[in-house]
Protein backbone atom coordinates (compact mmCIF):
# COMPACT_ATOMS: atom_id res chain seq x y z
CA UNK A 1 0.00 0.00 0.00
CA UNK A 2 2.78 2.38 0.91
CA UNK A 3 4.27 2.26 -2.55
CA UNK A 4 1.03 3.31 -4.10
CA UNK A 5 0.42 6.05 -1.60
CA UNK A 6 3.91 7.43 -1.50
CA UNK A 7 6.00 6.71 -4.57
CA UNK A 8 9.28 8.60 -4.35
CA UNK A 9 10.57 10.15 -7.50
CA UNK A 10 14.06 10.59 -8.78
CA UNK A 11 14.74 12.90 -11.66
CA UNK A 12 17.75 12.58 -13.92
CA UNK A 13 18.63 14.60 -16.96
CA UNK A 14 20.46 12.63 -19.61
CA UNK A 15 21.15 15.48 -21.98
CA UNK A 16 17.87 17.28 -22.43
CA UNK A 17 17.33 20.92 -23.33
CA UNK A 18 15.95 21.53 -19.83
CA UNK A 19 12.48 22.30 -21.15
CA UNK A 20 11.00 19.15 -19.71
CA UNK A 21 13.11 19.42 -16.58
CA UNK A 22 11.58 22.78 -15.86
CA UNK A 23 8.14 21.29 -16.24
CA UNK A 24 9.12 18.55 -13.80
CA UNK A 25 10.17 21.23 -11.37
CA UNK A 26 6.87 22.96 -11.95
CA UNK A 27 5.25 19.68 -10.95
CA UNK A 28 7.04 19.55 -7.65
CA UNK A 29 5.95 23.07 -6.74
CA UNK A 30 2.56 24.73 -6.04
CA UNK A 31 -0.23 24.57 -8.64
CA UNK A 32 0.63 21.12 -9.97
CA UNK A 33 2.10 19.75 -6.79
CA UNK A 34 2.52 16.01 -7.29
CA UNK A 35 3.02 15.72 -3.59
CA UNK A 36 -0.72 15.18 -3.43
CA UNK A 37 0.01 11.74 -4.87
CA UNK A 38 2.48 11.31 -2.05
CA UNK A 39 5.38 11.83 -4.39
CA UNK A 40 8.54 13.30 -2.91
CA UNK A 41 11.62 14.22 -4.86
CA UNK A 42 14.30 11.82 -3.67
CA UNK A 43 17.85 12.68 -4.57
CA UNK A 44 19.05 9.19 -3.86
CA UNK A 45 18.39 6.36 -6.31
CA UNK A 46 18.22 3.86 -3.46
CA UNK A 47 15.18 5.67 -2.08
CA UNK A 48 13.36 6.04 -5.36
CA UNK A 49 10.44 4.10 -6.81
CA UNK A 50 9.74 6.16 -9.91
CA UNK A 51 12.40 7.42 -12.28
CA UNK A 52 11.48 10.58 -14.16
CA UNK A 53 13.98 10.77 -16.99
CA UNK A 54 14.48 13.43 -19.60
CA UNK A 55 16.81 13.84 -22.52
CA UNK A 56 17.92 11.81 -25.52
CA UNK A 57 20.74 10.09 -23.53
CA UNK A 58 24.08 11.30 -24.68
CA UNK A 59 26.99 8.95 -24.87
CA UNK A 60 28.61 10.17 -21.71
CA UNK A 61 25.52 9.89 -19.55
CA UNK A 62 24.39 6.48 -20.88
CA UNK A 63 26.56 4.49 -18.48
CA UNK A 64 25.54 6.76 -15.59
CA UNK A 65 21.90 6.22 -16.44
CA UNK A 66 22.36 2.46 -16.44
CA UNK A 67 24.20 2.70 -13.16
CA UNK A 68 21.43 4.75 -11.55
CA UNK A 69 18.77 2.43 -12.87
CA UNK A 70 20.53 -0.58 -11.38
CA UNK A 71 20.67 1.11 -8.01
CA UNK A 72 16.93 1.72 -7.80
CA UNK A 73 15.35 -1.16 -5.87
CA UNK A 74 12.61 -3.31 -7.42
CA UNK A 75 9.78 -2.75 -8.07
CA UNK A 76 10.51 0.40 -10.06
CA UNK A 77 8.93 2.23 -12.94
CA UNK A 78 10.62 4.39 -15.51
CA UNK A 79 8.95 7.38 -17.11
CA UNK A 80 10.54 8.93 -20.18
CA UNK A 81 9.43 12.55 -20.16
CA UNK A 82 9.34 14.40 -23.44
CA UNK A 83 9.80 13.62 -27.10
CA UNK A 84 13.55 13.51 -26.91
CA UNK A 85 13.51 11.06 -24.01
CA UNK A 86 11.00 8.90 -25.87
CA UNK A 87 12.57 8.85 -29.30
CA UNK A 88 15.50 11.24 -29.39
CA UNK A 89 13.27 13.31 -31.67
CA UNK A 90 14.63 16.79 -32.28
CA UNK A 91 18.21 15.62 -31.81
CA UNK A 92 18.05 12.46 -33.89
CA UNK A 93 20.81 13.52 -36.26
CA UNK A 94 23.24 14.61 -33.56
CA UNK A 95 26.45 12.61 -33.34
CA UNK A 96 26.57 12.29 -29.58
CA UNK A 97 23.23 10.79 -28.63
CA UNK A 98 21.89 7.27 -28.25
CA UNK A 99 18.32 8.24 -29.16
CA UNK A 100 15.95 7.92 -26.26
CA UNK A 101 15.93 6.36 -22.82
CA UNK A 102 14.63 3.04 -24.12
CA UNK A 103 17.90 2.43 -25.97
CA UNK A 104 19.63 2.08 -22.61
CA UNK A 105 17.09 0.91 -20.05
CA UNK A 106 13.52 -0.42 -20.26
CA UNK A 107 10.85 2.27 -20.11
CA UNK A 108 7.32 1.80 -18.73
CA UNK A 109 5.61 5.06 -19.64
CA UNK A 110 6.35 7.52 -22.43
CA UNK A 111 5.18 11.10 -22.00
CA UNK A 112 4.91 13.05 -25.20
CA UNK A 113 5.39 16.70 -25.94
CA UNK A 114 8.27 19.00 -26.57
CA UNK A 115 8.17 20.31 -23.94
CA UNK A 116 5.86 17.83 -22.23
CA UNK A 117 3.09 19.68 -20.45
CA UNK A 118 2.79 19.29 -16.70
CA UNK A 119 -0.69 17.82 -17.16
CA UNK A 120 0.74 15.16 -19.47
CA UNK A 121 3.48 14.36 -16.99
CA UNK A 122 0.90 13.99 -14.22
CA UNK A 123 -1.09 11.73 -16.51
CA UNK A 124 2.02 9.63 -17.12
CA UNK A 125 2.80 9.67 -13.45
CA UNK A 126 -0.59 8.34 -12.45
CA UNK A 127 -0.23 5.58 -15.03
CA UNK A 128 3.17 4.80 -13.55
CA UNK A 129 1.71 4.48 -10.06
CA UNK A 130 -0.74 1.94 -11.43
CA UNK A 131 2.09 -0.05 -13.00
CA UNK A 132 4.10 0.17 -9.82
CA UNK A 133 1.22 -1.25 -7.84
CA UNK A 134 0.75 -4.06 -10.37
CA UNK A 135 4.43 -4.89 -10.23
CA UNK A 136 4.38 -4.94 -6.48
CA UNK A 137 1.56 -7.40 -6.39
CA UNK A 138 3.17 -9.41 -9.20
CA UNK A 139 0.32 -8.85 -11.63
CA UNK A 140 2.27 -6.85 -14.16
CA UNK A 141 2.56 -9.07 -17.20
CA UNK A 142 2.16 -6.70 -20.11
CA UNK A 143 5.01 -5.56 -22.30
CA UNK A 144 7.00 -2.61 -21.16
CA UNK A 145 6.60 0.57 -23.08
CA UNK A 146 2.92 0.17 -23.86
CA UNK A 147 1.60 3.24 -22.10
CA UNK A 148 1.76 6.59 -23.80
CA UNK A 149 0.62 9.49 -21.71
CA UNK A 150 -0.76 12.58 -23.33
CA UNK A 151 -1.41 10.73 -26.59
CA UNK A 152 -5.15 11.22 -26.30
CA UNK A 153 -4.75 14.95 -25.83
CA UNK A 154 -2.20 15.37 -28.56
CA UNK A 155 -4.07 13.19 -31.01
CA UNK A 156 -0.97 11.10 -31.52
CA UNK A 157 -1.06 7.39 -31.95
CA UNK A 158 0.45 5.19 -29.29
CA UNK A 159 4.10 4.70 -29.94
CA UNK A 160 4.27 1.27 -28.42
CA UNK A 161 7.25 -0.58 -29.72
CA UNK A 162 8.54 2.47 -31.56
CA UNK A 163 11.99 1.59 -30.41
CA UNK A 164 12.18 -1.56 -32.46
CA UNK A 165 14.76 -1.20 -35.16
CA UNK A 166 16.55 1.56 -33.34
CA UNK A 167 19.74 -0.44 -33.18
CA UNK A 168 20.27 -0.09 -36.93
CA UNK A 169 21.26 3.53 -36.74
Amino acid at each position, binding site marked *: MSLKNSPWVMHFDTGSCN*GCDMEIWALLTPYYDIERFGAINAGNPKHADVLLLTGPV*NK*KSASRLKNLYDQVPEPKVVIAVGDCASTGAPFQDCYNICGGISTVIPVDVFVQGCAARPEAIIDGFSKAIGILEEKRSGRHGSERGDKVAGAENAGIQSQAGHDSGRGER
Partner: protein
Amino acid sequence: MSRTMIIPFGPQHPAFLEPINLSLEVSEEKVSSVKVNIGYNHRGMEYALALDYKKTQYLVERVCGICSFHHSSVYCQTIEAIFGIEAPERAQIIRTIFMEFQRLTSHFLALGHVAEAAGYESLFMRSFAVREHIMRLLNRLTGSRVHYSVNIIGGVRTDISAEGARDILSVIDEIRPEVKTLRDVFLNDVTLVHRLSGAGKLTLDEARDWCAVGPVARASGIKEDARLDGFAAYGKIDFQPIVREEGDAFARTAIRAEECIQSLDLIEKCIMIMKDGETSAVAKKLPAGSSYSRVEAPRGELVYFLRSEEKKLSRLKIKTPASVNVPILASILKNASLADVPVIAASIDPCICCTDR
Protein backbone atom coordinates in the same frame (compact mmCIF):
# COMPACT_ATOMS: atom_id res chain seq x y z
CA MET B 1 47.27 15.76 10.69
CA SER B 2 44.71 16.45 8.05
CA ARG B 3 43.34 13.88 5.72
CA THR B 4 42.43 14.72 2.19
CA MET B 5 39.73 12.94 0.31
CA ILE B 6 37.94 13.37 -2.94
CA ILE B 7 34.18 13.75 -2.92
CA PRO B 8 32.34 13.47 -6.22
CA PHE B 9 29.35 15.78 -6.64
CA GLY B 10 27.04 14.70 -9.42
CA PRO B 11 26.31 14.02 -12.23
CA GLN B 12 23.16 13.05 -10.39
CA HIS B 13 22.94 15.07 -7.20
CA PRO B 14 19.93 16.59 -5.44
CA ALA B 15 21.65 19.97 -5.34
CA PHE B 16 21.98 20.16 -9.09
CA LEU B 17 19.11 20.34 -11.49
CA GLU B 18 21.34 19.20 -14.27
CA PRO B 19 24.15 16.75 -14.81
CA ILE B 20 27.48 18.26 -13.90
CA ASN B 21 30.25 16.55 -12.01
CA LEU B 22 32.48 18.30 -9.50
CA SER B 23 35.37 16.41 -7.96
CA LEU B 24 36.01 18.15 -4.69
CA GLU B 25 39.25 17.53 -2.89
CA VAL B 26 38.31 18.06 0.72
CA SER B 27 40.42 18.25 3.81
CA GLU B 28 38.73 18.84 7.15
CA GLU B 29 35.46 19.96 5.53
CA LYS B 30 37.31 22.61 3.53
CA VAL B 31 37.45 22.30 -0.22
CA SER B 32 41.06 22.49 -1.31
CA SER B 33 40.70 21.97 -5.02
CA VAL B 34 37.93 21.46 -7.54
CA LYS B 35 37.74 19.74 -10.88
CA VAL B 36 34.74 20.63 -13.02
CA ASN B 37 33.77 17.82 -15.32
CA ILE B 38 31.18 18.66 -17.97
CA GLY B 39 29.86 16.97 -21.08
CA TYR B 40 26.93 15.00 -19.70
CA ASN B 41 24.63 17.16 -21.74
CA HIS B 42 26.61 17.49 -24.94
CA ARG B 43 24.42 16.68 -27.90
CA GLY B 44 26.34 18.31 -30.71
CA MET B 45 23.96 21.20 -31.25
CA GLU B 46 26.33 23.35 -33.28
CA TYR B 47 26.66 20.55 -35.79
CA ALA B 48 22.93 19.81 -35.83
CA LEU B 49 21.94 23.47 -36.14
CA ALA B 50 24.06 23.99 -39.24
CA LEU B 51 22.63 20.94 -41.04
CA ASP B 52 19.58 22.54 -42.59
CA TYR B 53 18.87 26.17 -41.96
CA LYS B 54 15.14 25.77 -42.53
CA LYS B 55 14.99 23.50 -39.52
CA THR B 56 17.40 25.56 -37.47
CA GLN B 57 14.66 27.92 -36.34
CA TYR B 58 12.89 25.04 -34.64
CA LEU B 59 15.98 23.41 -33.24
CA VAL B 60 17.65 26.56 -31.99
CA GLU B 61 15.08 26.85 -29.20
CA ARG B 62 16.01 23.34 -28.10
CA VAL B 63 19.58 24.32 -27.31
CA CYS B 64 18.34 25.44 -23.92
CA GLY B 65 14.82 25.39 -22.56
CA ILE B 66 15.47 28.04 -19.93
CA CYS B 67 16.63 30.72 -22.35
CA SER B 68 15.08 29.31 -25.54
CA PHE B 69 13.74 32.66 -26.67
CA HIS B 70 17.10 34.34 -26.31
CA HIS B 71 18.68 31.66 -28.44
CA SER B 72 16.10 32.05 -31.16
CA SER B 73 16.27 35.86 -31.01
CA VAL B 74 20.01 36.04 -31.36
CA TYR B 75 19.92 33.46 -34.13
CA CYS B 76 17.33 35.55 -35.99
CA GLN B 77 19.28 38.73 -35.37
CA THR B 78 22.42 37.15 -36.79
CA ILE B 79 20.84 35.56 -39.83
CA GLU B 80 18.83 38.71 -40.54
CA ALA B 81 22.13 40.55 -40.83
CA ILE B 82 23.24 38.02 -43.46
CA PHE B 83 19.94 38.41 -45.31
CA GLY B 84 20.38 42.16 -45.06
CA ILE B 85 16.94 42.73 -43.57
CA GLU B 86 15.79 44.17 -40.30
CA ALA B 87 12.82 43.13 -38.23
CA PRO B 88 10.10 45.84 -38.05
CA GLU B 89 9.86 47.92 -34.91
CA ARG B 90 6.81 46.13 -33.56
CA ALA B 91 8.56 42.80 -33.91
CA GLN B 92 11.60 44.15 -32.08
CA ILE B 93 9.40 45.27 -29.20
CA ILE B 94 7.61 41.93 -29.06
CA ARG B 95 10.98 40.20 -28.95
CA THR B 96 12.04 42.43 -26.09
CA ILE B 97 8.87 41.65 -24.15
CA PHE B 98 9.34 37.90 -24.47
CA MET B 99 13.04 38.16 -23.68
CA GLU B 100 12.24 39.96 -20.46
CA PHE B 101 9.52 37.46 -19.56
CA GLN B 102 11.98 34.68 -20.10
CA ARG B 103 14.52 36.46 -17.95
CA LEU B 104 11.88 36.53 -15.21
CA THR B 105 11.18 32.82 -15.45
CA SER B 106 14.88 32.06 -15.50
CA HIS B 107 15.70 34.33 -12.58
CA PHE B 108 12.91 32.87 -10.47
CA LEU B 109 14.25 29.42 -11.24
CA ALA B 110 17.70 30.54 -10.12
CA LEU B 111 16.40 32.33 -7.02
CA GLY B 112 14.27 29.37 -6.04
CA HIS B 113 17.24 27.12 -6.53
CA VAL B 114 19.43 29.26 -4.28
CA ALA B 115 16.67 29.34 -1.67
CA GLU B 116 16.36 25.59 -1.75
CA ALA B 117 20.10 25.06 -1.53
CA ALA B 118 20.15 27.37 1.49
CA GLY B 119 17.39 25.34 3.11
CA TYR B 120 14.51 27.75 2.51
CA GLU B 121 11.91 25.35 1.23
CA SER B 122 8.93 27.71 1.33
CA LEU B 123 10.85 30.53 -0.33
CA PHE B 124 11.67 28.10 -3.10
CA MET B 125 7.99 27.23 -3.44
CA ARG B 126 6.96 30.88 -3.46
CA SER B 127 9.50 31.74 -6.15
CA PHE B 128 8.14 28.95 -8.28
CA ALA B 129 4.57 30.00 -7.60
CA VAL B 130 5.24 33.47 -9.06
CA ARG B 131 7.04 31.88 -11.94
CA GLU B 132 4.00 29.76 -12.68
CA HIS B 133 1.90 32.92 -13.21
CA ILE B 134 4.33 33.99 -15.92
CA MET B 135 4.46 30.55 -17.50
CA ARG B 136 0.69 30.55 -17.75
CA LEU B 137 0.61 34.02 -19.21
CA LEU B 138 3.16 32.94 -21.82
CA ASN B 139 1.06 29.90 -22.54
CA ARG B 140 -1.94 32.14 -23.20
CA LEU B 141 0.09 34.48 -25.41
CA THR B 142 2.03 31.96 -27.44
CA GLY B 143 0.42 28.58 -26.90
CA SER B 144 3.48 27.12 -25.28
CA ARG B 145 5.02 27.26 -21.84
CA VAL B 146 8.65 26.63 -22.66
CA HIS B 147 9.47 26.96 -26.34
CA TYR B 148 7.39 29.86 -27.57
CA SER B 149 8.15 29.49 -31.31
CA VAL B 150 7.48 33.19 -31.72
CA ASN B 151 10.52 34.21 -33.74
CA ILE B 152 10.92 33.79 -37.46
CA ILE B 153 13.64 35.13 -39.69
CA GLY B 154 12.59 38.72 -40.31
CA GLY B 155 10.38 39.24 -37.29
CA VAL B 156 7.86 37.41 -35.21
CA ARG B 157 4.94 35.23 -36.20
CA THR B 158 2.86 35.80 -33.07
CA ASP B 159 1.55 39.29 -32.58
CA ILE B 160 0.48 40.59 -29.20
CA SER B 161 -3.13 41.69 -29.54
CA ALA B 162 -4.68 44.54 -27.55
CA GLU B 163 -6.28 41.91 -25.37
CA GLY B 164 -2.90 40.21 -24.90
CA ALA B 165 -1.34 43.51 -23.87
CA ARG B 166 -4.08 44.03 -21.28
CA ASP B 167 -3.49 40.50 -20.04
CA ILE B 168 0.23 41.20 -19.69
CA LEU B 169 -0.37 44.40 -17.74
CA SER B 170 -2.89 42.80 -15.43
CA VAL B 171 -0.57 39.88 -14.69
CA ILE B 172 2.25 42.31 -13.96
CA ASP B 173 0.01 44.24 -11.57
CA GLU B 174 -0.98 41.00 -9.94
CA ILE B 175 2.51 39.63 -9.37
CA ARG B 176 4.38 42.85 -8.65
CA PRO B 177 3.61 42.90 -4.88
CA GLU B 178 4.73 39.30 -4.53
CA VAL B 179 7.88 39.91 -6.57
CA LYS B 180 8.66 42.88 -4.34
CA THR B 181 8.11 40.79 -1.23
CA LEU B 182 10.41 38.10 -2.54
CA ARG B 183 13.05 40.64 -3.43
CA ASP B 184 12.87 42.07 0.09
CA VAL B 185 13.24 38.61 1.58
CA PHE B 186 16.29 37.85 -0.55
CA LEU B 187 17.80 41.23 0.23
CA ASN B 188 16.97 41.61 3.91
CA ASP B 189 16.26 38.30 5.58
CA VAL B 190 18.89 38.09 8.30
CA THR B 191 19.55 34.36 8.15
CA LEU B 192 19.64 34.23 4.40
CA VAL B 193 21.93 37.23 4.15
CA HIS B 194 24.30 35.68 6.68
CA ARG B 195 24.20 32.39 4.84
CA LEU B 196 25.03 33.93 1.48
CA SER B 197 27.32 36.82 2.41
CA GLY B 198 30.96 36.09 1.83
CA ALA B 199 30.23 32.69 0.27
CA GLY B 200 31.98 32.10 -3.04
CA LYS B 201 33.61 35.47 -3.31
CA LEU B 202 34.76 36.55 -6.75
CA THR B 203 36.73 39.79 -6.74
CA LEU B 204 36.65 42.32 -9.53
CA ASP B 205 40.06 41.26 -10.84
CA GLU B 206 39.17 37.59 -10.71
CA ALA B 207 35.93 38.31 -12.53
CA ARG B 208 37.94 40.07 -15.25
CA ASP B 209 40.44 37.21 -15.44
CA TRP B 210 37.72 34.60 -15.78
CA CYS B 211 35.82 36.80 -18.28
CA ALA B 212 32.67 36.52 -16.19
CA VAL B 213 29.43 37.66 -17.80
CA GLY B 214 25.90 38.48 -16.76
CA PRO B 215 24.77 38.71 -13.14
CA VAL B 216 28.02 37.05 -12.01
CA ALA B 217 30.09 39.86 -13.54
CA ARG B 218 27.67 42.57 -12.42
CA ALA B 219 27.80 41.25 -8.86
CA SER B 220 31.57 41.76 -8.88
CA GLY B 221 31.35 45.35 -10.00
CA ILE B 222 31.68 45.04 -13.77
CA LYS B 223 29.13 47.21 -15.53
CA GLU B 224 28.70 44.87 -18.44
CA ASP B 225 25.37 44.13 -20.06
CA ALA B 226 24.72 43.43 -23.70
CA ARG B 227 21.39 45.22 -23.38
CA LEU B 228 23.36 48.46 -23.34
CA ASP B 229 24.06 47.83 -27.05
CA GLY B 230 20.41 48.58 -27.64
CA PHE B 231 19.58 45.49 -29.66
CA ALA B 232 15.88 44.76 -30.25
CA ALA B 233 14.02 47.58 -28.44
CA TYR B 234 16.45 48.10 -25.57
CA GLY B 235 17.72 51.30 -27.14
CA LYS B 236 14.26 52.85 -26.79
CA ILE B 237 13.38 51.98 -23.24
CA ASP B 238 16.17 53.59 -21.25
CA PHE B 239 17.89 50.66 -19.69
CA GLN B 240 20.56 50.82 -17.00
CA PRO B 241 22.16 47.66 -15.59
CA ILE B 242 22.13 46.90 -11.88
CA VAL B 243 25.64 46.57 -10.48
CA ARG B 244 26.89 45.57 -7.04
CA GLU B 245 30.38 45.41 -5.59
CA GLU B 246 30.43 42.54 -3.08
CA GLY B 247 31.04 39.69 -5.52
CA ASP B 248 29.66 36.97 -3.25
CA ALA B 249 26.70 34.63 -3.48
CA PHE B 250 24.53 37.26 -1.81
CA ALA B 251 25.35 39.91 -4.41
CA ARG B 252 24.62 37.53 -7.27
CA THR B 253 21.28 36.61 -5.75
CA ALA B 254 20.44 40.23 -4.98
CA ILE B 255 21.16 41.25 -8.57
CA ARG B 256 18.78 38.62 -9.86
CA ALA B 257 16.10 39.64 -7.37
CA GLU B 258 16.37 43.29 -8.40
CA GLU B 259 16.46 42.45 -12.08
CA CYS B 260 13.09 40.76 -11.68
CA ILE B 261 11.52 44.09 -10.72
CA GLN B 262 13.46 45.80 -13.48
CA SER B 263 12.15 43.29 -16.02
CA LEU B 264 8.57 44.03 -15.00
CA ASP B 265 9.26 47.76 -15.55
CA LEU B 266 10.89 47.12 -18.91
CA ILE B 267 7.93 45.07 -20.10
CA GLU B 268 5.54 47.83 -19.10
CA LYS B 269 7.63 50.38 -20.97
CA CYS B 270 7.62 48.15 -24.04
CA ILE B 271 3.84 47.87 -23.97
CA MET B 272 3.61 51.66 -23.71
CA ILE B 273 5.75 52.32 -26.78
CA MET B 274 4.23 49.58 -28.91
CA LYS B 275 2.70 50.96 -32.12
CA ASP B 276 0.65 49.25 -34.79
CA GLY B 277 2.56 47.98 -37.75
CA GLU B 278 4.12 45.07 -39.55
CA THR B 279 5.45 42.18 -37.51
CA SER B 280 7.75 40.59 -40.04
CA ALA B 281 9.92 41.42 -42.99
CA VAL B 282 10.25 39.10 -45.97
CA ALA B 283 13.39 37.03 -46.19
CA LYS B 284 14.29 35.78 -49.67
CA LYS B 285 16.97 33.21 -50.40
CA LEU B 286 19.97 32.96 -48.12
CA PRO B 287 23.04 34.72 -49.52
CA ALA B 288 26.62 33.80 -48.72
CA GLY B 289 28.11 35.76 -45.89
CA SER B 290 28.94 35.72 -42.25
CA SER B 291 27.72 37.57 -39.25
CA TYR B 292 28.04 37.82 -35.52
CA SER B 293 25.69 39.18 -32.91
CA ARG B 294 24.89 39.04 -29.23
CA VAL B 295 22.04 39.46 -26.78
CA GLU B 296 21.87 39.49 -23.02
CA ALA B 297 20.45 36.14 -21.94
CA PRO B 298 19.41 35.69 -18.30
CA ARG B 299 22.89 34.38 -17.48
CA GLY B 300 24.80 36.91 -19.53
CA GLU B 301 26.06 37.64 -22.97
CA LEU B 302 25.00 35.09 -25.58
CA VAL B 303 26.89 35.22 -28.86
CA TYR B 304 26.12 33.59 -32.17
CA PHE B 305 28.40 33.46 -35.16
CA LEU B 306 27.04 32.28 -38.49
CA ARG B 307 28.67 31.65 -41.82
CA SER B 308 26.54 30.81 -44.81
CA GLU B 309 27.15 29.59 -48.29
CA GLU B 310 24.47 29.91 -50.97
CA LYS B 311 21.25 28.58 -49.41
CA LYS B 312 22.96 26.74 -46.58
CA LEU B 313 24.78 27.36 -43.36
CA SER B 314 28.35 26.17 -43.25
CA ARG B 315 29.13 27.05 -39.65
CA LEU B 316 27.24 28.04 -36.55
CA LYS B 317 29.14 28.85 -33.42
CA ILE B 318 27.52 29.56 -30.07
CA LYS B 319 29.19 31.12 -27.09
CA THR B 320 26.86 30.74 -24.15
CA PRO B 321 27.12 32.67 -20.89
CA ALA B 322 27.07 29.51 -18.79
CA SER B 323 30.09 28.09 -20.57
CA VAL B 324 32.02 31.11 -19.30
CA ASN B 325 30.55 31.18 -15.81
CA VAL B 326 30.59 27.49 -14.92
CA PRO B 327 34.42 27.15 -14.93
CA ILE B 328 34.52 29.97 -12.35
CA LEU B 329 33.25 27.36 -9.88
CA ALA B 330 36.77 25.92 -9.87
CA SER B 331 38.00 29.19 -8.41
CA ILE B 332 35.24 30.27 -6.02
CA LEU B 333 34.67 26.86 -4.46
CA LYS B 334 38.26 26.78 -3.25
CA ASN B 335 38.47 27.19 0.53
CA ALA B 336 34.69 27.07 0.84
CA SER B 337 33.28 24.71 3.40
CA LEU B 338 31.66 21.59 2.02
CA ALA B 339 28.22 22.62 3.25
CA ASP B 340 28.40 25.81 1.19
CA VAL B 341 29.07 24.05 -2.10
CA PRO B 342 25.41 23.71 -3.20
CA VAL B 343 24.63 27.35 -2.40
CA ILE B 344 27.69 28.68 -4.18
CA ALA B 345 27.08 26.46 -7.18
CA ALA B 346 23.45 27.60 -7.33
CA SER B 347 24.43 31.26 -7.05
CA ILE B 348 26.40 31.02 -10.30
CA ASP B 349 23.18 29.73 -11.89
CA PRO B 350 24.88 27.01 -13.90
CA CYS B 351 22.98 25.97 -16.99
CA ILE B 352 24.57 22.78 -18.18
CA CYS B 353 22.61 22.38 -21.37
CA CYS B 354 23.94 25.76 -22.48
CA THR B 355 27.44 24.91 -21.31
CA ASP B 356 27.62 21.59 -23.11
CA ARG B 357 25.17 22.22 -25.96
